[in-house]
């Protein structure tokens, strides 16, 4: 399978409007299409619309969750933000540390290093994202050295300090990654991401490969670091319970589009898009008295092919509420009365059930008291 970026974006697009106050990042109509060639002499060509015109804001200091099932484009979105992929369309307006507003999507390669210092990424698998032949000191120190931030003894101190911050012992800095457990490796990955004092951290399934007990440690570490350093997170995950715990706002994606965007609590208690509701209903609740999987009808069918999405609303073949208009007309992501944004023709008419607050969790009956 050969994936090549379609034509590079048109240069000289009209000047972007100024960014809204308090926004660190404004994503506008972001598009990432891949041309896939296959068959005899690679003549057949199909276009995978991995990300197909999405818009959202990331506010300074918040945690924005990006959720959806595999193939929805959430990872591709993250990779566009660090410019691992050059987007085929749209704008990525970013307010830099110096207050300047730049379009990351159109930034020439020579200017990228500056912004790659400010926007860092944490990947899913701490076993493949660390070089097994480098010591922890080299892994964490490399970004500092490459960017000319620190050398020699100062570099060593910085590395030791970072290790302490993520809860590791600085004495272990000459060890190799294999000497650490999965959770410790993910701490090393986080220390490396933080080494250049980033402003935005993109965490792509950062806790998905970890065991439950270790996952809790890493989540609490991320919460603490955000508080201490005023970090902004874009938290990409398929795990809704973790997203609910960590995120201030959530964007739900389906086949390359954002279908709903809003504050976590509202989105989880009163979903307005049928897909959001179906996702919530499919999360197995850790409560044997509420067997939601067995009592609710699961969503039928499967995620559409992003190279050949159904016409109209991409979700209509699986949607229990679909009507004629859904099969022909694509709903725009539009604001609803309570300030959320939903891409559904019938968002106002539908009254969809969400999740109820877990009484135990809210502290109404504290298991430690008993």
């Amino acid at each position: 399978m050969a994936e090549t970026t379609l034509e590079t974006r048109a240069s000289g697009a009209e000047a972007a409007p100024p960014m809204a106050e308090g926004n660190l990042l404004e994503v506008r109509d972001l598009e990432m299409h891949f041309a896939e060639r296959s068959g005899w002499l690679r003549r057949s060509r199909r276009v995978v619309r991995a990300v197909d015109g999405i818009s959202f804001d990331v506010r300074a200091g918040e945690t924005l969750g990006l959720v959806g099932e595999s193939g929805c484009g959430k990872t591709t979105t993250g990779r566009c933000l660090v410019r691992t992929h050059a987007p085929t369309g749209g704008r990525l307006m970013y307010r830099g540390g110096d207050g300047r507003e730049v379009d990351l999507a159109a930034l020439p390669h020579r200017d990228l290093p500056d912004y790659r210092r400010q926007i860092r990424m944490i990947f899913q698998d701490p076993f493949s994202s660390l070089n097994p032949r480098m010591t922890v000191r080299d892994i964490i120190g490399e970004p500092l050295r490459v960017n000319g931030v620190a050398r020699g003894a100062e570099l060593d101190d910085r590395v030791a300090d970072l290790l302490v911050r993520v809860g590791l012992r600085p004495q272990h800095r000459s060890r190799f990654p294999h000497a650490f457990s999965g959770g410790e490796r993910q701490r090393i990955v986080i220390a490396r991401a933080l080494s250049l004092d980033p402003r935005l951290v993109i965490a792509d399934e950062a806790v998905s490969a970890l065991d439950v007990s270790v996952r809790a440690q890493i989540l609490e570490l991320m919460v603490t670091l955000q508080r201490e350093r005023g970090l902004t997170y874009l938290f990409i995950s398929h795990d809704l319970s973790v997203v609910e715990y960590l995120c201030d706002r959530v964007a739900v994606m389906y086949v390359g589009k954002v279908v709903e965007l809003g504050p976590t609590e509202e989105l989880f208690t009163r979903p307005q898009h049928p897909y959001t509701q179906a996702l919530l209903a499919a999360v197995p609740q850790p409560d044997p008295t509420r067997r939601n999987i067995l009592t609710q009808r699961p969503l039928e069918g499967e995620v559409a092919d992003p190279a050949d999405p159904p016409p109209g609303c991409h979700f209509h073949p699986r949607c229990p509420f679909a009507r004629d208009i859904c099969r022909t007309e694509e709903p725009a992501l539009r604001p609803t009365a309570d300030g959320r944004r939903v891409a559904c023709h019938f968002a106002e008419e539908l009254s969809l059930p969400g999740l109820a607050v877990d009484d135990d969790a809210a502290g109404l009956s504290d298991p430690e008291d008993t």
Partner: protein
Amino acid sequence: MVESPPPLLDVRDLRTHFATDTGMVTAVDGASFSVPRGKTVCVVGESGCGKSVTGRSILRIVDAPGRVVGGSILWDRDGTGDPVDLATLDPGGPDIRKIRGDEIAMVFQEPMTSLSPVHTIGSQIAESVRLHTDLDDDAVRGRVIEVLGQVGMPRPESRYDAYTFQLSGGMRQRAMIAMALVCHPRLLIADEPTTALDVTTQAQILRLMVQLQAEMDMSVLFITHDMGVVAQIADEVVVMYLGTVVETGPTEQIFTDPRHPYTRALLQAIPRFGQRRAGRALSIIPGSVPDPYRRPGGCPFHPRCAQARPGTCDVVEPATVTVAERRDVRCVLAAEEVHS
């Protein structure tokens, strides 16, 4: 008390060890639990706790150099009280091969690696019917198409000739389940069958498994790391840590009244809806699961246990105590409660 019928499967003090070049790994180190007839038992634990090796030990398909070195696996298919001890059978012999795939079947996590890419799914499922029955070709085909329909495969007649790469992840897992169920097993061992799937697909598969279990009146031993899945489908729970069973019991009791500190900590480490807004952080189990080569002495959980007692927990292996009917806990604290 009315005497309950003997369990379908009774695992006692199971020990499965791997002799590797770097040392002995005690993957399963004295695990005991049982599976009642027609019930779903979930084995839950973190990576390295021995839950998968336990499942494989029952079918005697532990990969070399692993070996079942002790304990018994009593398989009482008909409830006669005269069980077969699977642990004593030759892993490659005719006796276990008659049971494997016929009376006890298994579903694995990754259908792409456990299904053959060069055979149609129909022919793969038919193979097990041919091995265990003497039906003719037409009857075999009919049986396969019937089971594909049962697992919710759309257009089963045409899917008979499909290859795995032509199916989605959810459909492949349905094909795996069809293969396991085609001979009407009494026990289905499912090792993380939904872990690689998306949540909406996972919900479909879980629902399907519960429905098929009731229809076919079989028992399910479901191996998972996800407490949410356990809460949804289990009748009874077996909690494992470092090759030992630390707690067993009915699902509701495990969730509302966990007795072992590990079970309690595990439950408090999962985010509950509304928890962060209520200002409650996740409870943290310090450290991580130890290296299998360096198992701590005494209770395997003591280095991470908030209630560990120096001089006791790091020295003596705790005994398993029965605190209520079908409710065992392997902890000195539970032992004291019972004795006082």
